[in-house]
Structures are given as C-alpha cells and as structure tokens.
C-alpha cells in the first residue's frame, strides 16, 4: 500500500504522555485534517512521524517501509516533508535559494534540474514575484507559502502541514486553500493541522481529532464535528451553522 500508516504511536516525555496509542492511515491523494485543542499532541505526533522525535513505542510505515526512528533527511528523501508551525526560513538566503535547498537535498537533483524544479514549484505556490528577495523580508502569507514550496521542492508525495494558515486573514486563507487543492490535484496527499475550522472543514476528506494525546474521533468532517467528545473537548458548541465549502 502506498501512503502513510501509523500504528499505535506513543510518545512519552518522562511521566507525561504527549501522544498515546494513536493509529491512523493516509491514503494517496487524500487530505486528512487533524484537529484538537492546544497541547493535544498534534505537533508532537508530526515530529514523531517526520523523524525529529523517536516515538517511545509504535510503528510508522511510509509506502510499506518501516521508517520509525529514521533521520528526518532520510524520511524526506523517501517522500515525506513537513512545514513547521514556527516558520524556519533560511533567513540570509533568497526565497529562491530556500526552495532550492529542498530541490537539491531533498529531491537530490543536479543544480540545473533543481533550478528548473524550483521555478516550477514557486509558480505553483505563487511565489515567483518574491524569488530574489531575502526570505526574512517577505510578508507572513508568503513565508507560509515558502515553507510549503520548500517541502514540495523536496519531492515529497506526503506533506504534513502544521498550522500552515496561522496568522492569515480570511481572504488569504481562501487563497491558501486553493493552493492546497491544486497540490492535492497534482497527486500529493496532505495532513493538515489547523485551528481554523472553516479551513479544515472546507478541505479535508477525513478528519481525526486528538485530545490529551489520544485519538478521540475519526471520520468524515460532518461526523467528527458532530461527535459529542469532540464538541466537549474542542469545539465547545455544535457547529450547526457552519457552512461546509
């Protein structure tokens, strides 16, 4: 099976269980939303999957290969990349060079090929106008897209987006959603962690909800937002008025 499969992942920091026995799978071409209150373990789970943390127990399979505990750069080269909630652009490099790093090292392309790939990716995420600017001189929405571009350029088929829309206004969110859909249509699968319910609902094929490190619900968007446990833990009230895009 292609895609990502997580089997009973737990991550303990001393006595604290940040992630407890979380299992899920991501199918090719799917967008999986991940929701949950602050501290639910979403970012920790991402860090386990991408190799920044080694899970205390559990297994992670990428395209049927066991990648548990592998180094992030290896996982990246095998086709999975992440964007961080806290943006980490390479400040003194231009936007173009930032994305180029992904193409050179992640996708292991030769310089000429990598440059062409970079241009293509920047076109896709609408960064071309910023290409020659330093990455710390561009506005926040563009920086969010830069993270996305770097992950895409690394050739990943599976993208984990950790609050990639944080700090964007509604108009910018619409733009970002359009880009994500374009990316999905190009054959990639995504896991989207987001607090903005309108965004998650609008884009996800399925949603999983976490609370205190454990999975409390999984299913289609409408099922999950109407789930009692999810409402109690996260939403606070029923999202009946919510318009599903």
């Amino acid at each position, binding site marked *: 099976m292609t895609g990502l499969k997580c089997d009973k992942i737990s991550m303990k920091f001393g006595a604290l269980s940040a992630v407890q026995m979380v299992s899920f799978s991501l199918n090719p071409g799917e967008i999986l939303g991940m929701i949950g209150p602050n501290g639910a373990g979403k970012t920790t789970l991402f860090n386990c999957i*991408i*190799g*920044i943390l080694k899970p205390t127990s559990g297994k992670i399979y990428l395209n049927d290969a066991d990648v548990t505990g592998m*180094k*992030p*750069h290896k996982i*990246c*080269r095998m086709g999975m*990349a*992440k964007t*961080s909630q806290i943006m*980490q*652009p*390479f*400040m*003194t*490099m*231009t936007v173009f*060079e930032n994305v*180029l*790093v*992904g193409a*050179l*090292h*992640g*996708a*292991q392309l030769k*310089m000429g090929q*990598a440059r062409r790939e970079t241009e293509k990716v920047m076109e896709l995420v609408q960064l071309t106008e910023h290409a020659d600017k330093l990455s710390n001189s561009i506005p926040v929405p563009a920086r969010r897209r830069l993270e996305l571009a*770097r*992950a895409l350029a*690394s050739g990943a088929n599976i993208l984990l987006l950790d609050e990639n829309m944080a700090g964007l206004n509604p108009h910018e969110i619409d733009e970002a959603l359009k880009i994500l859909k374009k990316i999905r249509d190009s054959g990639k699968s995504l896991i989207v962690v987001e607090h903005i319910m309108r965004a998650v609902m609008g884009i996800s094929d399925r949603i999983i909800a976490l609370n205190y490190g454990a999975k409390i619900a999984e299913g289609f968007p409408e099922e999950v937002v109407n789930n009692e446990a999810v409402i109690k833990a996260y939403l606070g009230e029923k999202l009946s008025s919510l318009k599903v895009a």
Partner: protein
Amino acid sequence: MNSKADRIILILFLLVSAGLFFVPGFVESEYVLRLITMVIFWVGIAGCWNIMSGYTGYIDFGPVVYFGIGSYVNAIAMTKYSLAFFPSLFLSGVLSAVVALIIGIPTLRLKGAYFAIATFAFAEAMKQITLEFDRTFKVSFFQGSDGITLPISGYDNAFFFYCILPVTFLVMLTHYFIEHSKFGYGLKAIKEAEIGAEISGVNTTAIKLRAYITSAFFLGLFGAIEAYWITYITPSEVFNVQKTVQMVIMTLLGGMGTFLGPIVGATFLTLLSESLGTRFVEYYLIMIGAIIIVAILIMPSGIIGTLKIRKRLRFI
C-alpha cells in the same frame, strides 16, 4: 547565485592569484616577500576556519589542533622515517583529516557553546599529549617540550611562498565552490535553521563532517609547511591557542561565511599588526585590540558582511 558580481569577483581572484605567482621574481626585498607570504598564509588559515565555522555557524575553537597535527606528522615523518618533504606534506594533510573524522563524529553532535568547548578541550588535550607522552611511556617520539628540529631545508623564502600560495588558492577555490554548490547551500541552511535543513532533506551530520574534514586537511598542510619553514617545533608553539584566536578574529573582522571575508580580514590584520608592530613596539597590541573592538562595534557582521547588508548587495 551565479550573479554578475560573483563572476567579476572570481575573475579578479584568479587574476590576482596568477599575478601573485610572479611576485618572487619581482620582489627584491626578502622582508617584503616574507610579509606577502605571511598574508597569504593567514588568508588560507582563516579560510580554513571559515569553511567550517563561517558557513555552518558551528564555532570551532580548536582548529589549531589540525595545524599542530600537521606540523608534528611532518616533523616525525621527516626526522624519524626520513620521508621527503612532499610525500610527508601530503601525509600530514591526510592524517589531520583522519583525526578530524574520528573527532568530528562525536563532537559535531554538540551545539553552540558545547561544541566550542569540546573543540577547545581537544586542542589543549593534544598539546598535553605531545608534551607528556614521551615522559609517561619512556620513549622518544614527540620529544615533549624539547621540541623537534626538522632537517634544514636550505630552501629560500620563495620556495615556501610557492608552497603556501597553491594551498591558499585551493582553500579559496573551495570557498567559491561552497558558494555555488549543493554542498554550500546545505552548509548555509544548517547555519540558519538546522532542523529546517534536516526536514528539507539535508543530511546535516554528513555535510558538517565534510566541512570539518576539508578544513582539517588544509590546516594540516599549512601546519606541515610552517614546521618545515621554521624547522623547529614545540607543542606550546604549534598548538598555541593564539593561532585559533587569530583565525577567528580575522574571519569575524572580514565577515563570516563569505568568500571575501577571510581574504579581507587576514590581509587587513596582518598588515595592520606589521605596520603598527614596527613603529609602536610596546603598545601595538593594545592599539590592535582597540581597532578590533571598534571595527566589530561598527561592523558586527564583519567588513564584507556589513557591506552586503548595508548596501543590500548580493555577492560572495
């Protein structure tokens, strides 16, 4: 970034290097030739530090150890095993690189001040080992504080000029390669955000190690050449922490992680201390200290680094 400015700088650099090749034929004064050799020597050494620390941001506080290892390998190979200078020189570089590989694997896991302390400690440890080894094991190998006298070469300053020039040239060429290659983008990415680099597919450990070994190889060559030049080495001289400090300050002054940084910094500081040292014998160190402090206050990113930021220029 293959910008026009970069190409002009490369052409200038190649022209200057080619021009320098003819210097010993034109310069009559041995003093001037020696001074020019010293400038090139320090450009190369500062450049070695820049390859590792300037580009990755890992502050190596013990680069002198590879210089010292180069010196000792050369001295021992030439005196104890009667090896000729050039094979011995090559061996010095290779052994320095091998030690760098062994030391680099554990120390490059450390970050920030811990890395600086570990490298500093290793350099001091090597100094103590060469000092005390013979007395402890009752042998005559490193010859402790007596030092080793190398065979007198009989070569003049021009010979050593021609030994040092190509090595410095290679160090600077490595810089140019770093600025325009996959390897270089990896190094710079590590400096900016190591985890960000790792999740973008950069094999951070391997790339750091490569930079560290490259730097150690060239330092070993420089150490070997200097040992043969001055013909007498002692542990406290070749492992002197002051050499480390000088590499760091020259690079900081010129601009860390830039191609022109070590060239500008080392040239400026060598010529400055020479011109002040001959005129103000007693006070020149104080004056140099003050000048360095002022320069760093005005230009915190170094001469080249600050120029790039202020003028918003993009060049190497």
